[in-house]
């Protein structure tokens, strides 16, 4: 049997979403960004919302997110994606608008914007990639960097007396009545990817139902920044990141109700 005999529709077990662009990604092998992009592209296709989706890309590694998903995009200034998304969503209330932000972008320079977008309950999805480090600029400390974790600006490990504490911003977000669904997921195993996809799907459906802000944190790896192999990164994340940032739904409610499990 030759290769061409195998390539038939009935033998197809996996297909790339048509909403995902057929280009090389600039992400490092082992990085979580690619998986989350794939989930988003698949869901946009499955839910049939390509024509009404507008993404807002951050500053950071995902600054080029607009190269990978075939929808309209705006590229925001560092930390300002929630404000940009507000402008789009308020004027196109029937569109599906989402921001895609990293931990430096969302929890540090954009801390004010994210708090207020969630507090106003803007009808958008926020995808928050938390890998505890600034990837694009070369591995500096992020607000979510764990205590003792070595980065290029904490060469002797994060010292909480000097640098403050790793910020559980998602738990803060869950306290805001403007949010409807706040969850923390990961994509380091096949099971986790499936679960994460279900969460993002629910979050998108919430936005389509105009239920307010949905917020999905994805605890992620940055093997280049962490200076580990992809497999070691996944193991390290499971042993260190997930105990501090436990996975699961933090709030599943409706806008206007400050219900939080933590």
């Amino acid at each position, binding site marked *: 049997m030759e290769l061409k005999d195998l390539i038939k529709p009935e033998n197809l077990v996996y297909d790339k979403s048509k909403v995902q662009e057929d280009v090389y990604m600039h992400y490092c092998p082992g990085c979580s960004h690619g998986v989350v992009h794939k989930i988003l592209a698949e869901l946009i296709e499955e839910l049939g919302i390509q024509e009404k989706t507008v993404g807002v890309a951050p500053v950071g590694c995902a600054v080029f997110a607009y190269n990978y998903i075939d929808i309209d995009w705006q590229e925001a200034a560092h930390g*300002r994606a929630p404000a*940009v998304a507000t402008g789009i969503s308020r004027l196109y209330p029937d569109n599906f608008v989402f921001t895609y932000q990293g931990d430096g972008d969302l929890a540090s320079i954009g801390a004010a914007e994210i708090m207020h977008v969630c507090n106003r309950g803007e009808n958008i999805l926020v995808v928050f990639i938390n890998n505890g480090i600034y990837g694009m600029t070369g591995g500096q400390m992020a607000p979510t960097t764990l205590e003792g974790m070595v980065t290029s600006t904490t060469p002797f490990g994060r010292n909480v007396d000097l640098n403050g504490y790793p910020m559980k911003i998602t738990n803060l977000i869950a306290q805001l009545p403007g949010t409807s669904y706040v969850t923390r997921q990961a994509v380091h195993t096949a099971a986790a990817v499936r679960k994460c996809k279900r969460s993002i799907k629910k979050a998108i459906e919430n936005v389509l139902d105009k239920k307010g802000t949905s917020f999905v944190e994805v605890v992620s790896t940055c093997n280049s920044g962490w200076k580990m192999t992809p497999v070691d990164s996944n193991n390290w994340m499971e042993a260190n990141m997930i105990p501090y940032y436990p996975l699961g739904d933090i709030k599943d409610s409706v806008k206007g109700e400050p219900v939080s499990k933590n």
Partner: protein
Amino acid sequence: MAEIRLMKGNEVLAEAAIRCGCDGYFGYPITPQSEVMETLMARQPWTETGMVVLQAESEVAAINMVYGAAGSGKKAMTSSSSPGISLMSEGISYIAGAELPCLIVNVQRGGPGLGTIQPSQADYFQAVKGGGHGDYKLIVLAPSSVQEMNDFVDLGLELAFKYRNPSMILTDGALGQMMEKVELADFKPRWTNEEIHEKWGSWATTGKPASRKKNVVTSLVMDSDVMEKNNLRFQEKYRIIEEKEVRYETIQWDDAEFMLVAFGTSSRVCQKAVEIARAKGLKVGLLRPITLFPFPRAIIKELARKVKGFLSVEMSAGQMVEDIKLSVYEAGSNVRVNYFGRMGGIIPTPEEVVEALEEKFSWELSYGVKRSY
């Protein structure tokens, strides 16, 4: 029949925005322009035209909301005063870099820092030279009456879309707070989403229909060669704006030996100064730039060949005077260009202006000007 009312400059900005079919206003309170958002909130235009009005958490957020709205092809605007415009400068640079149309109003107050809440023109450099980082220009309109505050909202947005470039109304606390008679414009309907798709479908993020490629609004270019091409394209756009969009007004300039040059509130002071000077037998005229960028260089070059001197009258330490000097230099003229102004929120008096003219040009008044061409 046009509607005529007695209104504050700041209130008129709000009314004009509703009437010209503006889609979204995003702002943050700051003296002396808070009446803009207050008027909008009281008018509730969302019940009438569907215009969105939102109080942002900061000027930083407000300008980025404008970015988002403008990037989707909507008519978006914000207003603030000097310290707030400094905070917005990051966003304005991104808007210029992404070539988005919008309107920014700066109702200036005295600076630097928190400064005063009284009127000033000390943000001239910030407005006409770019303000934020990178090589860019705003189209800057300088109203001198409440009527022009009204007219320039529509004009500013029109020019912004014509050139896909942010426009700024550079005004001050005096014009914002002053009440005058104003003839309001008729209501223009807001563009429908279909019209926006039709007009701006080549760049606006309206949601990607199957019929077109995705639109990406960004100012990021990693390739230097491509970025330089963008820069050159921007510069060419600014050159065309300089060629086509210069606006100014001249008063008593036919026989003038000395020209006062002033914009906004200080130009009103200068109108009176011209009268006083003329009564004293001094042949004085006034040039009022209406667009600060593009700056009316051609008329200054023409005047430089016939007058004995220019006096730039500003509510700043002397900023526009540099642009006048550049134009006079370009004309190959050696007439002197002087500056007179007040700072700290103080408006000069017409008498002070005439006194300054007589003092600074005492040589020319006695002996005339030596021309070298």
